[in-house]
C-alpha cells in the first residue's frame, strides 16, 4: 500500500514541480516573491536614478511610464502578496496543528498560476513594450494605450488573480475545518487570524478585479464600448470597480503583517499578547471597513460634497481599530523582557513608521485637503510609508523569525542588524522628504522636473536613501548565502509560544507525528509553563495518509497562459488550444481516482529517532 519510498527515486526537480506539500509550496511562493521583489526593486532604482537630478536624460518618458507601472504592479501582486502567501502556506497549518491544507492540489495550482501570471506580465518587456498606464490602469488611458503592453497587464493579472482566489478559499476552509482538537477560534494565533480575515478580503475583492480586467479586455481586444464615451461608455465605472477591489487590496497587504508583528512582539517580550480578543475584533473590523471606503481614491472625480464627506468619515473610522492594535502592541511590550533580535527590531521600527503613514492617511482622507494632495509626491510618501513601514517590515521580520523553521538554519543576527539599520535609515531618507516635495507641488508619475523649482536637493536626498536600501537588501542576500552553517538550535530558537515551534526543523512532510492537543492560547507556551514542555498528543501513533504529488497543476496553468497569449494577440486558435489543454487536464483530474499513500508507523518512529 505505501509507496512513500517510491518518491525518493524521482529527481529533486520533479519532486518540487509536482509537490502538493504546503511547506514546499510555501517556500516556492517565498522565493518567487523574493525574485519579483528584486526585479521591482531594480525598477524602483532606475526611476530614482532618473529623478536624481532635474531634466535627466537617463530614461525616456515612455520607459519611465513602463517602469512605473511594472514597479507598482510587480511589488503589489508578485512580490508582497506571494511573500505573505509563502508564510501563510508554511506557517498557518502548523500553527493550527493540521497535517495539511484542505485542498493540496488546488494549493499547488494557485502557486503555478501566480508564477505563470508573473511570467506573462514580465515577458511584455521582451515582447515589445511593457504596460504603461500605471498599476491602476485607469480607462481611457489604458483602453487607448497603443501596442500590447496593457493586454499583458490584463492577462497576467487575470491568471495570477485566479490563483490568489483559489489559495484564499483553501486557507479559509483549512482554518475552519482542520484545526487540531482544542484549538478553538479564540485560541488561534494572531497570524492565523489575520490569514483568515485576509483570505475573506481576497474572496470578496478579487472577483471585482476580475470583472474590471474583463471589461478592459473587452474594450481593448474585442472592441467593446464600456469605457468609450463616444459609444455611451462611462470611465468612472472603471474607477469604482477598480477601487472596490483596490482599497481592500491594501488591507490584504497589511493585515498579514499585523499578524506577524503580533507573534513576534509577544514572543520577544516574553508575554502573552495584550488584549488578544480586542486584537481579533479589531482585525475583523478593519477587514469590514476596508470595503466601505473605496471612493476616497476618487474625491477629485466629481462625486459631489455629500459622497465625499461620507467616504471621508468612513475612512477616518478605520483609524480607531488600528489605534487599538497599536496600543495593544505597546502594552504587550510594556514591562516585558524584551530581546532585540532582528525580527523584533523590525517589529519595533514598524510602530512609529506605520503611525506616520497612518497620520498622512487621515490627512488624505480629508476630502477638501485631498484636492491639494492628490497626485503629488505626498501620496507617494504616504503609501510607501504604510506599504514599506508596514508590509515590507513585516515580511523582513517574518523572514528572520521563521527562517530557521523554513530552511533549517538561522540567519546571522549581526549581519542582520546591519541590514536592519541601513534599510531603516534608507527608507526614512527616501520617503520622509517626499512629503515636502509633494506639499510644494511636485506631481507623481512624472519622468522629470525642471531646474529651479526647488525640487533638486530633496530629490537627490531621496535617491540617496534608495541606494542605502539597495545596499541593505544586498546584505540580506549575502546573509542568506553565508549563514547556512548555523544549523544548531533551529527547532525552537526564540523560545516560541505557538505550535509551529513544537515540531522539528526542517518539518517532516506530515507536520506532526501525532496531532497535538491544544489546551490554551499560546499552546506551546502553556505546555512549557505547566506541562513537560511538549505538546500532548490527541491521538495514538498511527499510519498517516498523505496526498500524492501531481504534475497536472503546471499544465492547467500552462493551458490558461497559452489562452492568455491568444487573447493578447487576438488569435482565436491559440485561445482555443490553451483552453482545450486546461479542460483536458481538469478532465483527467476528475476521471482519475487518486487515493494518495500512507506513511507506516515504522517510518514515523524512525523520523522520531525511536526506530
Amino acid at each position, binding site marked *: 500500500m505505501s509507496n512513500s519510498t517510491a518518491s525518493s527515486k524521482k529527481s529533486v526537480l520533479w519532486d518540487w514541480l509536482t509537490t502538493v506539500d504546503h511547506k514546499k509550496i510555501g517556500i516556492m511562493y517565498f522565493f518567487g516573491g523574493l525574485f519579483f521583489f528584486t526585479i521591482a526593486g531594480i525598477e524602483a532604482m532606475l526611476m530614482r536614478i532618473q529623478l536624481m537630478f532635474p531634466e535627466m536624460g537617463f530614461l525616456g518618458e515612455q520607459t519611465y511610464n513602463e517602469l512605473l507601472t511594472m514597479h507598482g504592479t510587480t511589488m503589489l501582486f508578485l512580490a508582497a502578496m506571494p511573500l505573505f502567501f509563502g508564510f501563510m502556506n508554511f506557517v498557518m497549518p502548523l500553527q493550527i496543528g493540521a497535517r495539511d491544507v484542505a485542498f493540496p492540489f488546488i494549493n499547488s495550482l494557485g502557486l503555478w498560476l501566480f508564477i505563470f501570471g508573473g511570467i506573462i506580465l514580465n515577458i511584455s518587456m521582451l515582447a515589445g513594450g511593457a504596460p504603461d498606464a500605471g498599476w491602476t490602469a485607469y480607462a481611457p488611458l489604458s483602453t487607448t494605450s497603443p501596442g500590447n503592453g496593457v493586454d499583458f497587464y490584463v492577462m497576467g493579472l487575470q491568471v495570477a488573480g485566479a490563483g490568489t482566489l483559489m489559495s484564499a478559499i483553501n486557507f479559509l476552509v483549512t482554518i475552519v475545518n482542520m484545526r487540531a482538537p482544542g484549538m478553538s477560534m479564540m485560541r488561534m494565533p494572531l497570524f492565523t487570524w489575520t490569514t483568515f480575515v485576509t483570505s475573506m478580503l481576497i*474572496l470578496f475583492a478579487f472577483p*471585482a478585479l*476580475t*470583472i474590471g480586467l474583463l471589461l478592459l479586455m*473587452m474594450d481593448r481586444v474585442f472592441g467593446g464600448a464600456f469605457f*468609450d464615451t463616444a*459609444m455611451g461608455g*462611462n470611465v468612472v465605472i472603471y474607477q469604482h470597480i477598480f477601487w472596490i477591489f483596490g482599497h481592500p487590496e491594501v488591507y490584504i497587504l497589511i493585515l498579514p503583517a499585523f499578524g506577524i508583528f503580533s507573534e513576534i512582539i509577544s514572543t520577544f517580550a516574553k508575554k502573552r499578547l495584550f488584549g488578544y480578543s480586542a486584537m481579533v475584533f479589531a482585525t475583523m473590523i478593519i477587514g469590514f471597513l476596508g470595503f466601505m471606503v473605496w471612493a476616497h481614491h476618487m474625491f477629485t472625480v466629481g462625486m459631489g460634497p455629500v459622497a465625499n464627506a461620507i467616504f471621508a468619515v468612513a475612512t477616518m473610522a478605520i483609524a480607531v481599530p488600528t489605534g487599538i492594535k497599536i496600543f495593544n502592541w505597546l502594552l504587550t511590550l510594556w514591562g516585558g523582557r524584551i530581546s532585540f533580535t532582528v525580527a523584533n527590531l523590525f517589529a519595533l521600527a514598524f510602530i512609529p513608521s506605520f503611525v506616520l503613514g497612518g497620520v498622512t492617511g487621515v490627512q488624505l482622507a480629508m476630502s477638501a485637503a485631498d484636492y491639494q494632495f492628490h497626485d503629488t509626491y505626498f501620496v507617494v510618501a504616504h503609501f510607501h510609508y504604510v506599504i514599506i513601514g508596514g508590509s515590507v517590515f513585516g515580511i523582513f521580520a517574518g523572514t528572520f523569525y521563521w527562517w530557521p523553521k523554513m530552511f533549517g538554519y538561522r540567519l546571522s543576527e549581526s549581519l542582520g542588524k546591519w541590514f536592519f539599520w541601513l534599510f531603516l535609515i534608507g527608507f526614512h531618507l527616501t520617503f520622509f522628504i517626499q512629503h515636502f516635495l509633494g506639499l510644494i507641488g511636485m506631481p507623481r508619475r512624472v519622468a522629470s522636473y525642471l531646474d529651479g523649482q526647488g525640487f533638486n536637493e530633496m530629490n537627490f536626498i531621496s535617491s540617496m536613501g534608495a541606494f542605502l536600501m539597495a545596499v541593505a537588501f544586498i546584505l540580506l542576500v549575502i546573509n542568506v548565502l553565508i549563514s547556512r552553517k548555523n544549523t544548531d538550535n533551529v527547532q525552537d530558537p526564540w523560545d516560541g509560544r505557538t505550535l509551529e515551534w513544537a515540531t522539528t526543523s526542517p518539518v517532516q512532510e506530515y507536520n506532526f507525528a501525532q496531532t497535538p492537543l491544544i489546551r490554551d492560547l499560546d499552546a506551546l507556551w502553556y505546555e512549557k509553563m505547566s506541562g513537560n514542555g511538549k505538546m500532548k498528543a490527541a491521538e495514538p501513533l498511527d499510519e498517516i495518509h498523505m496526498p500524492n504529488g501531481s504534475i497536472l497543476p503546471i499544465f492547467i496553468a500552462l493551458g490558461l497562459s497559452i489562452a492568455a497569449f491568444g487573447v493578447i494577440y487576438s488569435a482565436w486558435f491559440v485561445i482555443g488550444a490553451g483552453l482545450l489543454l486546461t479542460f483536458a487536464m481538469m478532465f483527467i483530474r*476528475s*476521471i482519475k481516482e487518486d487515493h494518495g499513500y500512507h506513511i507506516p508507523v515504522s517510518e514515523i518512529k524512525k523520523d522520531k529517532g525511536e526506530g
Partner: protein
Amino acid sequence: MAADHAIERQSLPPDPQKATLEGRNKYLGFWFFLGGETVLFGTLFGTFLGLRSSTEGGPTAQDLFHLDLVFIMTMILLTSSLTSVFAVINMKRGNHKKLILWMAGTVILGAAFLGFEIYEFVVYYNYGLGFTVSAFASSFYTLVGTHGAHVAFGVGWITTLLIRYRKGGITLSNAPKFYTAVLYWHFIDVVWVFIFTVVYLLGVGG
C-alpha cells in the same frame, strides 16, 4: 480506502456529502467560492445598470426583447433546478440509478437553455445589436454571456461526473461531488432569476 467501494444502501449516512472531512471541505469551500461568484455577478450587474440606457442610437431593450422567449428559457432553467433537487433526494436515499437519471435530465435542460440563448443572441445580432454597437450592447452581452458561460461549464462538469460515475454506486467520495455540482447549478439559476428581472423585465418595462 473503504470510501471507494460502493456502500450498501442501509450503511450510507443521512448526509453522505458531509460524512468525510474531504466532503466537508469541498462543501464549505464551495460555499466560499459561491460568495466570490456573487461579487463577480454583482459587479457585472452594477455595470449593466450603469450603462443600460446608453444605447447611443443603436437598438434598445424595448426594440429587442421578447418576453415569451425569455419566459420559456426561465421555465427550462427552473425545471432543471427541480430535477437536480430530485437527484439529491435520491442520492440521500442511496438510489444511484435515479440519481444519474435526474442529473442527466438536468444536463439536457441546461443544454436546451443554452441553445435558446444562442438563438436569442443571433436574432439580436441580426437586428443590429452587435457587441460593439453601444455601451448597452457590450454590457448586455457581457453579463448574459458570462451567465451563459457558467451554464456551459456546469453542463460540462455534470456530464463529466455522469461519465465517471455512471456505474458503481453512491460513495462517500462521489456524493460530495454531485452535491457541489447541484449547489453550483442552483446558484446559476438564482443568477438567472436576477437577469430575468433586472435585464429583461426592467428593460421592457423601461
